């Protein structure tokens, strides 16, 4: 059939209609280059994650996340796609926390996380991506910066990339921080599952000490640093979550915050000062040895455990837990690195703290 004008008005109308319909048959962009395309990417990820299609969601979001079109919405979406590999189900996790409220006031919390996020190293299960998914998710969340926020170069990671990270939690959006609490739980649980040899027949108590208890321990610059980084990011972000969460399970988060934030920050500072271990009740812990960083300790006074637990540590380089430890790649594994030293003490805290550490068999 031809579309000539001499075929009559009806044919002209039909041709115009056909052209209009055919003109709409172009391929839909999924690169995030337009607002519509970006929303379509977000939709596609959300749809895939409704049915547990983690790989599909990741394959959709990663090209956009690693492009100039990445923004906070894309980063949050990437965080959800990656943490899918860690089997984090948001409402189930909330429910589990609320159901196990009695475990939140002490070391049984670590057992719970180990139970919720089982994982194996790739030499045992090559397909296991629980830990990697959680870590990638945390990277994305740390790059969700408040609009207009001026970043401090010292605490900015990948400044020239498409998704620069701020190690200062207050630079990030409240939603990113709140979600970080749950994602870091997945990272912590999967680390413990991999390296603590938990006994599933005995309430997921550890059967092995976590390694990396000194700054120069093998694996400190990688796994040790990542685990310690997850711990400090967990308590950082939980502080924000506790201010926004007023729902039925909010008391659980408040309990967690009260229980762990002070203890973890203190352990971090103890490591940074190369001091021997002290419990949150002011008792010396002999098995918790200094992080092995004599150069950092050289200028510090000797403090007794009770003073440390009640008044904290003196103002100096390590007066607060090193911000750089929020970066999971910051540790050099050397004895003069505050982040590595702090990380070592955090591992010792989990291994040896009698009330708040991961429960022994």
């Amino acid at each position, binding site marked *: 059939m031809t579309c000539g004008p001499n075929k009559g008005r009806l044919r002209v109308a039909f041709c115009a*209609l056909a052209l209009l319909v055919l003109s709409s*048959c172009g391929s*839909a962009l999924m690169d995030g280059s337009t607002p519509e395309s970006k929303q379509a990417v977000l939709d596609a990820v959300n749809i895939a994650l409704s049915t547990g299609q983690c790989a599909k969601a990741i394959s959709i979001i990663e090209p956009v996340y690693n492009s100039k079109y990445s923004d906070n919405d894309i980063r949050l979406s990437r965080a*959800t796609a990656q943490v899918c590999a860690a089997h984090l189900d948001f409402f189930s996790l909330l429910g589990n926390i609320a159901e196990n409220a009695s475990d939140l006031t002490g070391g049984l919390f670590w057992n719970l996380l180990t139970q919720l996020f089982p994982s194996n190293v790739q030499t045992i299960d090559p397909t296991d991506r629980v830990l990697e998914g959680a870590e990638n998710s945390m990277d994305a969340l740390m790059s969700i910066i408040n609009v207009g926020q001026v970043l401090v170069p010292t605490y900015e990671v990948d400044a020239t990339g498409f998704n620069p990270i701020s190690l200062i939690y207050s630079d990030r959006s409240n939603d990113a921080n709140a979600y970080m609490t749950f994602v870091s739980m997945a990272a912590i649980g999967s680390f413990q599952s991999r390296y603590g040899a938990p006994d599933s027949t005995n309430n997921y108590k550890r059967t092995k000490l976590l390694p990396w208890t000194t700054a120069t321990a093998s694996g400190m610059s990688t796994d040790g640093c990542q685990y310690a980084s997850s711990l400090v990011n967990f308590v950082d972000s939980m502080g924000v979550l506790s201010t926004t969460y007023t729902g039925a399970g909010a008391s659980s988060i408040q309990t967690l915050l009260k229980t762990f934030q002070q203890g973890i920050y203190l352990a971090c500072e103890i490591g940074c000062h190369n001091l021997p271990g002290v419990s949150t009740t002011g008792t010396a812990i002999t098995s918790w040895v200094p992080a092995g960083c004599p150069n950092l300790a050289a200028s510090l006074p000797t403090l007794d455990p009770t003073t440390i637990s009640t008044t904290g540590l003196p103002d100096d380089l390590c007066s607060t837990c090193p911000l750089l430890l929020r970066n999971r790649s910051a540790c050099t594994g050397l004895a003069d690195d505050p982040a590595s030293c702090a990380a070592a003490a955090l591992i010792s805290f989990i291994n040896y703290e009698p009330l708040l550490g991961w429960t022994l068999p």
Partner: protein
Amino acid sequence: MVCGCAHAGHGGGAGLASPSDDAALYVNPAALAGVKKFDFTGIAANIEGSTDVYTNYATDIAAFSNFTTSSIDAVMGQDIYARAEVTPTLIAPNMAGGIYVDGQAGIVARNEQLPQITLMNQVTYGMQFGYGTSLLGRKALRNPKMDFRVGAAVKFGWRRGGTSQLDLTDLLNLESNYSSYLYPVPQFGIGVDLGMQFINNFSKMMSLSWGLTYQDVGNTAYGSADAQPQNVSTGVSFTYKVPGVTATVAYDIRHLTDDADFMKKNHVGLAVKIPLIDLYAGVYQTSITYGASVDLWLFNISVATYSEEQGTYAFQDPENRWVARIGVKIGI
């Protein structure tokens, strides 16, 4: 907003160029200029629901009977949508008036890792009056082959609620706050619809129509409730009549001025009317639609199905819906 839900399912939802008399008030008020008799549709009730509503009815009701955050998990990936609408309408030559009550509720949950939840709870009720006239006046009477009509409708109504997208803070506090989404306060609003219609009757058997509508001019605001966004649409339809059978092919492009995938704006439909029965088929956005309508004395009963695209792009996330309509029509 008030579409006559059945219209959405019939023939791809197309037909603003040549709406039926009882739909003209809400679809294209210019078509009121073509009304030649008095009619009263005493009851015009539409009931509409997504497929997931009835396929997962038992599990969803169980999950929401005692609301907890895990209730949302029960509907993850589903499209829960229900709508009921009553629109008694009085139609007269050139004009019409109607009362409408429209209630919509739904929940769409996606993403188990960080649920993206859209809650809908909206009730709108009020009155609408429309007037249509021929711009050709007596010329149209002398030459019934052609007519050019314009029309307008004004609506006064109240709305409560709307659509809520829940962010993370909302999600965390959903268990304690969910009742706040259920009982919003009604808000008053006034809106205007404009329409245009051009008809060319080639012969007694064939006619071609074109229509243009501008609904909810400048957005109809309802205070703190959701505004009804404006909608500019156009369409053409071709009608072929032989004794006992009338067939209409229609094509509409809706939401012309919206930034949206063009394929989602398309509506193509075919309606075949034979005595007592109408059959419909078409493409609503990108999905096949079909339906049928039966006249039983004063009653008209219609059933149709169509799919509403929930994703940004066509074919991303179509939600299948069924719609039924019962009308009682009295000629005056």
